């Protein structure tokens, strides 16, 4: 048991850092954060990673993965955090991509994987419905067979970035008579198909991330179905496990903690630097220690997976603890900003404080991370039932 880097690994770390220095900067980070420039800047960032061959570390090499060891992946994520660089959008690379290369046919792989890798196709996830949130198998969106097509009718909700998406991967009901889990199929749907409409939902950070997506007699070729009819739930479940592991957000937490340290050093707290406050230090230390633990939990899970184990309840554990910590650092960041954390920006005016707005938006939208990707209550139910045998 050891956790030191070999000379090759240290060399790799230098390469990653130098790549980030040359390809990522605060200006790009700011454009990724701003809603108006978010999409273009995100794609720009993805393309830089794609050009380097570093866009899909988790994928098998034959599909465009990096052939990295877990240590290299860990080094890469750590360097991203240092550079305050966000990860690429998960919907293609971490969600539908793995489903396509695992369960899709050759034609589907050839058709969809390149766009996912190079950032040309923006994907969104169409699972949840108004009546099917935590109870996902209650989904009602219907797909009826009509020759070589399915005709889709129904409503998806909470669809993140559907307004930007070219394609949606959706769970639809193809059999209403079978047990709920057994009548679901996994479809890839072109967002430009006629009958698809997208309505925005404003979230509590005041932004438009979420949407309601309606399907009104939308024709989708049967060729766009992944795997077998009525087996979609199996594929979706495999993906959910991936998604949850992707949600632990350790790198993000480290970034915020770094920011908080920097900011708290400059804030006055009754005549001292806020960073010197024992209360603040105790709070930061608590979070940091949990994060150190979670980092190793993640490494232990990755190591087990590399030896052939499947992430089961561990992925729930990572999601659960990771999102709790995300919210903890977001609260911390908000508190350090003081009342500036509550100020809405006003066009053309300088607020006189450069992180309050970010602290507010991240805190507010961060409330959702314990809800999406399977709520934390659902994750606890999973661990209780399948992990602890309750």
């Amino acid at each position: 048991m050891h956790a030191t880097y070999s000379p090759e690994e240290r060399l790799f770390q230098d390469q990653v850092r130098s790549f980030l220095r040359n390809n990522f900067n605060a200006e790009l980070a700011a454009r990724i954060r701003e809603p108006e420039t978010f999409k273009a800047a995100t794609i720009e960032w993805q393309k830089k990673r794609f050009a380097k061959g570093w866009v899909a570390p988790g994928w098998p090499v034959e599909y465009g993965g990096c052939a990295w060891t877990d240590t290299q992946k860990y080094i890469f994520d750590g360097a991203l955090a240092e550079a305050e660089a966000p990860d690429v959008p998960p919907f293609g690379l971490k969600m539908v991509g793995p489903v396509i290369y695992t369960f899709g046919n050759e034609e589907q792989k050839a058709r969809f994987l390149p766009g996912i890798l190079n950032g040309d196709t923006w994907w969104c996830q169409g699972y949840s419905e108004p009546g099917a949130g935590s109870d996902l198998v209650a989904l009602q969106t219907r797909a009826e067979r009509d020759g070589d097509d399915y005709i889709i009718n129904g409503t998806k909700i909470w669809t993140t970035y559907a307004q930007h998406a070219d394609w949606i991967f959706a769970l639809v009901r193809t059999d209403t008579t079978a047990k709920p889990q057994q009548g679901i199929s996994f479809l890839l749907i072109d967002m430009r198909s006629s009958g698809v409409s997208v309505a925005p939902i404003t979230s509590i950070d005041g932004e438009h991330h979420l949407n309601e997506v309606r399907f009104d007699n939308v024709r989708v070729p049967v060729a766009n179905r992944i795997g077998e009819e009525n087996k979609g739930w199996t594929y979706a479940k495999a993906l959910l496990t991936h998604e949850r592991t992707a949600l632990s957000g350790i790198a993000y937490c480290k970034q915020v903690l770094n920011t908080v340290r920097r900011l708290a050093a400059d804030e006055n707290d009754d005549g001292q630097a806020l960073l010197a406050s024992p209360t603040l230090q105790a709070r930061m230390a608590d979070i940091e220690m949990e994060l150190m633990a979670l980092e190793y939990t993640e490494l232990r899970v990755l190591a087990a997976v590399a030896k052939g184990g499947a992430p089961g309840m561990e992925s729930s554990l990572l999601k659960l603890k990771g999102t709790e910590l995300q919210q903890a650092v977001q609260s911390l960041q908000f508190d350090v900003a003081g009342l500036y954390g509550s100020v809405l920006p006003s066009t053309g005016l300088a607020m006189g404080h450069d992180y309050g707005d970010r602290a507010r938006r991240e805190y507010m939208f961060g409330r959702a991370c314990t809800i999406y990707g399977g709520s934390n209550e659902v994750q606890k139910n999973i661990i209780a039932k399948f992990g602890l045998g309750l």
Partner: protein
Amino acid sequence: MDFSLNAEQQLLKDSVDKYMSERYDSEQRRSYLAAPKGFSAAVWQDFGNLGWLTVPLPESEGGFGGSVVDTAVLMEAMGRSVAVEPYLATVLLAGQLIANGDNATLKERYLPDILSGNCQAAFAYQERRSRHQLDAIDCQLERNGDGYSLNGHKTLVLNGAIADVLIVTAWLDESIALFAVPANSAGVHCDAFRLMDGQGVANVRFDAVQLPRENLVCAGAGSMALIRRVLDEATIAVSAQAVGAMEYLLKATVDYSNTRKQFGQPIGKFQALQHRMVDMYTATEQCRSLLVRALCSNSIEQGDVQTQAQAEMDIAALKAMVGKHGRAVAEEAVQIHGGMGVTEELNIGDYLKRLMVIDSLFGDQDWQRRRFATLRYQ
């Protein structure tokens, strides 16, 4: 010992509860927020006509002479509806400073209009570096002939953008003085912002603003004592708002849990959620108790040093706990509403935002906890 409201207070409570239930649902609130000033002029006028703007001000100044209890009754109801009217800034901060200062001319000039709803006011005391330290300021008054010249910046002044008069803290010689600055004075520049909970704030710059002597609200040692007293009462008032907001959230969350179905049953049937709502209930009751406690100790004559220290400790305890539990209750309310909780379609987020703002105002939970510990253990 009697924790009930007296007859007058009960009447006040009935009238404000009735008004808010008729005039302040979340749709109405949104329409008020959309008005140019960020609140409804009609509602403000109603507050004036109903006499609510007079509640805390001394009878000698034409006020109702109410105690912190009366104010709490009003503020709790406003918290329950996340009201956006600038009652805090105009009446509880600026109004109280003028009314309890020692300048009869200013009282005559401003109080009648404040009481009738025709004057908006603000208290400008924080600067970029202050955080919660009242004397970490750089605004400076210099003598200039018979009067003074004011220079400096104030930040995030509640109601600052629409106030007719700003009560400003600034150094005068070796101590902090309070000055009334008409907003239309030459050299006053104002950048308006909105807080996420709907309240208006402003960053204000004073460039050699010329002020006559008679605009001095209070100077010398008395001014800091006056500021502290007014802020303490305002702290109780926002805590009362918080308790109102928490009670609303608890009820809304229980109602939602009884109607939203997943897995074939109302989510309120899941024990994991039931216990969390019980925790919300416990937290709310604890905060209500600290509110009652602080109201008791702060509505009696402040006789000796000991009762005064106790009263102050009660305020610190109240504000610290309201900050902590208020946020926790609101975060739980969002969580239990699932995706709906993080949308602007429901009003749950409005309450979260107000409770976050309340925690940041007048000393956040960490600061108040430290204040409590200092009073208690040192």
